[in-house]
């Protein structure tokens, strides 16, 4: 067999393929491409399922017609948007949980209708932006009471002036392909479950916006320099970075900054208060990589099935943060801290202008990343699942732990 074809051989249906992100080897390109295509196909199937449900009637017919009128690249943008995935998952949950009759059945009907309408709205927005790009203002925009309408992936927006004229704009972009979302409805949304979006939303002034964009682009450049494949992971699996400015100061330093990814919104990540000067570029690099690794893993899960059933009652104490977290987050955490450790170590090796304070910060973070692996217990044994798991998952977790223990000489006399 031709050895040059080997990098393309990657069984992306098995969780074991995800270990490529820990090795950044020649197969990583094939793994990323395989996951993206698998996810696109899975999302298309999900849309077909939603439209094929006879109960969805006229709205489904309209979604289908608008979707079919979009060119293939625009269809893909819809299917890969966080908004579509979130609405589809909520629609699916409503279908599965709806009882036969009673008040609860009506509540679930309302939930189905709300999410079907959300999918209808997002395909309309994509079509309206396409039309506007070719000089035509659609009825959707003409009838809209909003002043700004953004694309489902967040990388384009239409703005209305006081004369009612709509024009296309592009929000700030990171690495030419990741939208930095400072103002949209998504960015201003209040979400009680979220560590970032439950914080009061304050407007970033122009100087702060400039700081945010500069810090993000320096962080991405640092990642590109330290581990180019990780830069590709970010560009391939993140479409939108939501930036939230919250209270100017809180006595709890741990809550002043934050970042998160939520599984129902693949392709998005959220950053809290990165405009603060005390948050370094190195800290920003780690946050972006941390959440992008979640996105990479979530994309695989969306295409192939979740690692473990969603269960928030059982929470494992993270050996890194000390916080009780769901099993799924814990499995992700093992990858995330391994990848961030690898990134920060490479950064120290290649960065030529890193000052003493930044170097000390990176050393502290490397110690945090490593410490969670250097524990007596096998990481896989801590999972609190009542269901059998794919054997690859435990093996991957323990392999990463064994690797880190070897690197740090855990248990050996110094």
């Amino acid at each position, binding site marked *: 067999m031709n050895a040059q074809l080997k990098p393309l051989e990657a069984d992306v249906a098995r969780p074991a393929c995800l270990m490529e992100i820990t090795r950044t080897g020649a197969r990583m390109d094939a793994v990323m491409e395989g996951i993206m295509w698998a996810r696109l196909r899975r999302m298309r199937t999900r849309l077909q399922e939603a439209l094929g449900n006879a109960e969805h009637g006229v709205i489904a017919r309209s979604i289908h017609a608008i979707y079919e009128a979009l060119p293939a690249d625009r269809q893909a943008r819809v299917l890969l948007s966080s908004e579509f995935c979130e609405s589809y998952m909520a629609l699916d949950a409503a279908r599965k949980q709806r009882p036969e009759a009673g008040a609860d059945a009506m509540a679930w009907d309302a939930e189905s209708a709300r999410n079907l309408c959300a999918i209808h709205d997002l395909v309309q927005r994509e079509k309206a932006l396409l039309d506007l790009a070719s000089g035509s203002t659609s009825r959707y925009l003409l009838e809209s009471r909003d002043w700004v309408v953004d694309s489902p992936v967040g990388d384009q927006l239409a703005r209305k002036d006081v004369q009612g004229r709509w024009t296309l704009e592009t929000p700030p972009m990171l690495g030419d392909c990741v939208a930095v979302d400072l103002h949209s409805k998504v960015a201003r949304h209040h979400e009680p479950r979220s560590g970032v979006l*439950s914080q009061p939303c304050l407007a970033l002034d122009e100087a702060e916006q400039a700081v945010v964009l500069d810090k993000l682009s320096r962080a991405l450049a640092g990642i590109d320099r330290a581990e180019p494949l990780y830069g590709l992971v970010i560009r391939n699996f993140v479409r939108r970075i939501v930036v939230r400015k919250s209270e100017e100061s809180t006595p709890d330093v741990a809550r002043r900054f934050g970042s998160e990814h939520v599984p129902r919104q693949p392709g998005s990540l959220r950053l809290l208060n990165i405009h603060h000067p005390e948050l370094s570029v190195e800290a920003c690099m780690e946050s972006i990589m941390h959440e992008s690794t979640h996105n990479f893993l979530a994309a695989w899960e969306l295409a192939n099935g979740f690692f473990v059933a969603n269960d928030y*009652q*059982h*929470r494992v104490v993270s050996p890194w943060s000390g916080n009780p977290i769901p099993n799924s987050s814990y499995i992700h955490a093992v990858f995330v801290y391994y990848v961030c450790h690898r990134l920060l170590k490479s950064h120290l090796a290649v960065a030529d202008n890193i000052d003493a304070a930044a170097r000390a910060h990176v050393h*502290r973070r*490397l110690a945090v990343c490593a410490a969670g692996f*250097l524990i007596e217990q096998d990481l896989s044994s801590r999972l609190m699942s009542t269901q059998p798991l794919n054997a690859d998952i435990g093996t991957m977790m323990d392999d990463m732990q064994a690797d880190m223990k070897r690197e740090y000489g855990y*248990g*050996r006399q*110094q």
Partner: protein
Amino acid sequence: MKARTIVLYTDHADPVARRAAQAGAELLHLDELLPMVRAGNWPAVLDFEPSAAMREQFIGARVVNRVFSLANTRMDGFLRESGIDARWLHIRLQSLLESAASVCHDTGVRGVSRTLMPLNVQWFELKRVLADIQTPDFVYSIGYEAPDLRGLVDPLQKSVWSLFDWKQERNLLPEEKRRHQFFVSRPQGVPLVSYFCGGSADGIFFPRGEAVPIDLQRVHAINQAARRAFRSETGELLLFAEGGQLRFHAFSPYLLSVADEPAMVEMLGRWLAADDSSARSDDARHALVH
């Protein structure tokens, strides 16, 4: 041959440490290791160089690791001043403990050590070993979301880390009160504390003085399941007797509820003096009700 027993501890009031000398065990306070540690640059982070004599002392020993908390130790002050996370102390201790013949209690900080788990993890882990054990119903909300308490009877908000406050929670931090709220059904029935040393010495007592008939074989089975699940050769459990059933509420290695119970004092002494960590000799069998 009788293995040397070493009790490594941090709290001078620790019930096991207090009984160790009398039982002929060796006592080692964590602060005695202070001259052997120093802050290092990454990747060393924390250098730990025990003397050859100390390494020799641990080889083949039976170690009781009572490093549950660093509070009030000089080691804690040193780590804080050096900006070193306590996790690294446990990481370095492992290099010493690995040469022991047996180690009672896991190493690691709270939540990492299987000996120091939060309530909901304790319930899950005990069920792994003893599938039919009853545990409290609970609700665990996410973020600032309000919990749905409809499935609970007389809901009580608790800290997941608070093992023994079941009438009124006194250890709820303000952050826990608002975020990731944890509620349980308030306990029903008669509380009892069961305790054990090794594989065959068990005891129970009724903290409210109100005794009810108890199946001692069942208590033994629960104690042994806890011994395995929480990697502890000694510990105490809070159970509630509900009719003929026992419901497990919490495990604690601290032994604070039973530290001054004469039967426990005697049991601890025998266990610490025993030849091996399993203490399975027939003459060590106790089934005390008091």
